[in-house]
């Protein structure tokens, strides 16, 4: 049975277990003189039965779904006769997909070797067996769990405590998902990165100034090695992020100042949500706008004044990205400016300062740490932004500071290396994970510092 069908089945069994335990708890209570004499309400006996039924079954089901594919695949591959057994991981993935395509009837069986046909049969058998086994086991565990809980419907057992303790653990497990996610991210990138550094020296990756990851298909091809120096990607990312911040910081900051100090209540109520709409627009829309409207426009203007601009200029991507992060800067600045106590404003105004003088000389310096934190968060967002640069910046890894040139970024390269045809275990694929690791580390550091600065700032005025 499919996991998708088994899931509702387990839930149905749980509901039955709930109903049975509920009835039993009432009938147990009856001779004692009503449910008052039970240690817990019937609801808790019933809920406990449902939990006993569902939780172990669901854990089993999840584990099975997670590892089934991999285990079966390994069994099939190891069953292949020596002459077709794959020599490299790349070959292995090719054969596996061939086998599964035959098994699913997507590939004509007459056009593959005998051994693959046999393997496809084996794959189908194993899948069927695994499915049957899984179904039996899950139902068995669900029923056993319910039955056990049913026998434990006894007046002297406090089911409420059991249920509450279980729920508490469930809640904790949910909160721990945050840790698991972080651990998952770190593990995802770290293994592949280590393997990458086995192929390409770490010093070349960090300090090399040339990036062309096209490894050759044949060994005798020219330039078969590929170059993996991340400096051009790094500078490209910085160039685009810097342009974005040059747009977003002044515009965002001045908007926040105007909104908090000058705008009327009504103006604020209208303008603020409009500004926030800029943050809600999906990045693919900005990418579309950058690639199809802004970039050609910039190229046209540059052409008119006699400059040579690439069709995929860093400037176009940077400008549009800047527009995207305006609301981040403005709403964070708005928060910190409003956190500056009113009595500082009054103090300055009472000395005869104008509003602009008060803002520039008193409020802005007081809010500066918080604003810096906000800008760092915006920078981290700009560095990690993907779609705008994928669509509007180029693939050419130029080491340049000219905003009219085409540059590429870390995120663009990750997407390019991991979409399209992948060769497992090639330096090219692994490089994407190494870039991902760099990106994760840089944004993590920025975020930690920024969050720390903002928190310290808040505490100062609380």
């Amino acid at each position, binding site marked *: 049975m499919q996991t998708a069908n088994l899931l509702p089945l387990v839930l149905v069994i749980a509901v039955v277990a709930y109903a049975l335990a509920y009835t039993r708890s009432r009938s147990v209570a009856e001779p004692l003189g009503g449910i008052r004499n039970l240690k817990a309400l019937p609801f808790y006996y019933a809920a406990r039965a449902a939990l006993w039924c569902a939780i172990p079954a669901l854990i089993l089901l999840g584990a099975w779904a997670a590892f089934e594919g991999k285990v079966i695949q390994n069994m099939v591959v190891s069953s292949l006769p020596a002459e077709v057994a794959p020599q490299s991981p790349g070959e292995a993935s090719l054969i596996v997909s061939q086998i599964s395509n035959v098994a699913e009837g997507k590939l004509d069986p007459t056009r593959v070797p005998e051994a693959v046909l046999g393997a496809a049969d084996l794959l189908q058998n194993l899948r069927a067996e695994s499915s049957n086994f899984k179904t039996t086991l899950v139902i068995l565990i669900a029923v056993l769990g319910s039955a056990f809980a049913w026998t434990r419907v006894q007046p002297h057992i406090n089911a409420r405590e059991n249920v509450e303790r279980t729920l508490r653990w469930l809640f904790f497990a949910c909160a721990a998902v945050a840790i698991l996610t972080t651990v998952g991210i770190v593990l995802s990138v770290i293994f592949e990165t280590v393997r990458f550094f086995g192929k390409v020296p770490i010093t070349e990756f960090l300090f090399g100034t040339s990036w062309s990851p096209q490894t050759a298909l044949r060994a005798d091809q020219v330039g078969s090695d590929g170059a993996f120096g991340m400096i051009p990607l790094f500078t490209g990312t910085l160039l685009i992020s810097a342009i974005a911040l040059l747009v977003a910081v002044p515009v965002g900051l001045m908007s926040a100042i105007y909104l908090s100090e000058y705008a*009327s*209540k009504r103006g604020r109520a209208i303008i603020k949500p409009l500004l926030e709409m800029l943050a809600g627009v999906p990045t693919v829309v900005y990418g579309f706008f950058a690639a199809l409207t802004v970039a050609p426009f910039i190229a046209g203007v540059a052409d008119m004044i006699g400059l040579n601009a690439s069709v995929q200029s860093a400037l176009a991507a940077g400008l549009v990205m800047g527009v995207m992060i305006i609301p981040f800067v403005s709403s964070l600045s708005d928060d910190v400016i409003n956190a500056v*106590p009113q*009595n*500082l*404003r*009054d*103090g*300055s*105004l*009472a*000395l*005869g*300062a*104008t509003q602009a*003088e008060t803002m520039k*000389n*008193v409020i802005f*310096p*007081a809010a500066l740490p918080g604003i810096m934190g906000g800008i760092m968060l915006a920078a981290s967002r700009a560095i990690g932004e993907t779609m705008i640069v994928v669509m509007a910046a180029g693939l050419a890894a130029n080491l340049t500071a000219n905003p009219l040139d085409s540059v590429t970024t870390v995120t663009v390269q990750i997407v390019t290396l991991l979409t399209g045809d992948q060769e497992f275990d090639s330096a090219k694929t692994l490089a994407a994970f190494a870039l991902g690791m760099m990106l994760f580390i840089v944004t993590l550091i920025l975020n930690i510092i920024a969050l720390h600065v903002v928190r310290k700032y808040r505490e100062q005025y609380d």
Partner: protein
Amino acid sequence: MNTMNPTVTSETGAGVVEDKVAPVKEERPAEAELEEGVTVGTPYSDDPKFKLRNVEVFYGESRAIKNISLDIARNEVIAFIGPSGCGKSTFLRCLNRMNDSIDICKVKGSLQLDDNDIYDPSRDVVELRARVGMVFQKPNPFPKSIYDNVAYGPRIHGLANRKSDLDDIVENSLRKAGLWNEVKDRLDATATGMSGGQQQRLCIARTIAVSPEVVLMDEPCSALDPIATAKVEELIAELSESYTIVIVTHSMQQAARVSHRTAYFHLGHLVEVNETNKVFTSPEHNMTESYITGRFG
């Protein structure tokens, strides 16, 4: 604190803000006893710095100040007293238009400083505030150095042409505020690291660095301990030689100690204005008497 005697200079003066006697609260007189626009005592002066006539302040629909007329004499210290919410702070903030920043606040009537209307639309609020400085309830030094705090006003107004002039202004102001000896070695230290009393005196120094003619003080000691309060009160007495000072206070002892005249506000009315001595020994209005003897407030 039930038996209020104006001559008592209790050190707990700063602490009486919340000092109320609950059971006698019902004796609070009804507003009906107050007649609008009628103030007993001596509200007018021969040599007024401020000439305030028929002043009314509205917060949206509600009337916070009801037809008050009062003169504030040159170089006098006048104290505004009264129960919470009586409008004394609101009235004070009219004198340098600090209410401007509140959208719903409207001021009516005639308010004149040296015979010029304060609320004249052509009147410049920056210049007004340079002449009428203000010290707030809670010390609010800017998060800058001590020097920069005092130098801030002269700088924005362009009162010093040279660095040495500015140094002089800062030193003089700090001396007048009685703070110079305490801080002369750490002028570059940040002002927020000072004690509360020092901060408040710094705020006073900051205010007088602009050489105002009037200093408004809105409960300047309510956030200070008794020793710091005593120092600030001493300072007020010294400043009264060269400045007109209007002080709002919750502490009747403080009013008695520092002021020449005392004005009693109640529910937006100015009930009585008299020589401070008279207000605390033989008040003319029975409500003033009830208040100073602690029957409500």
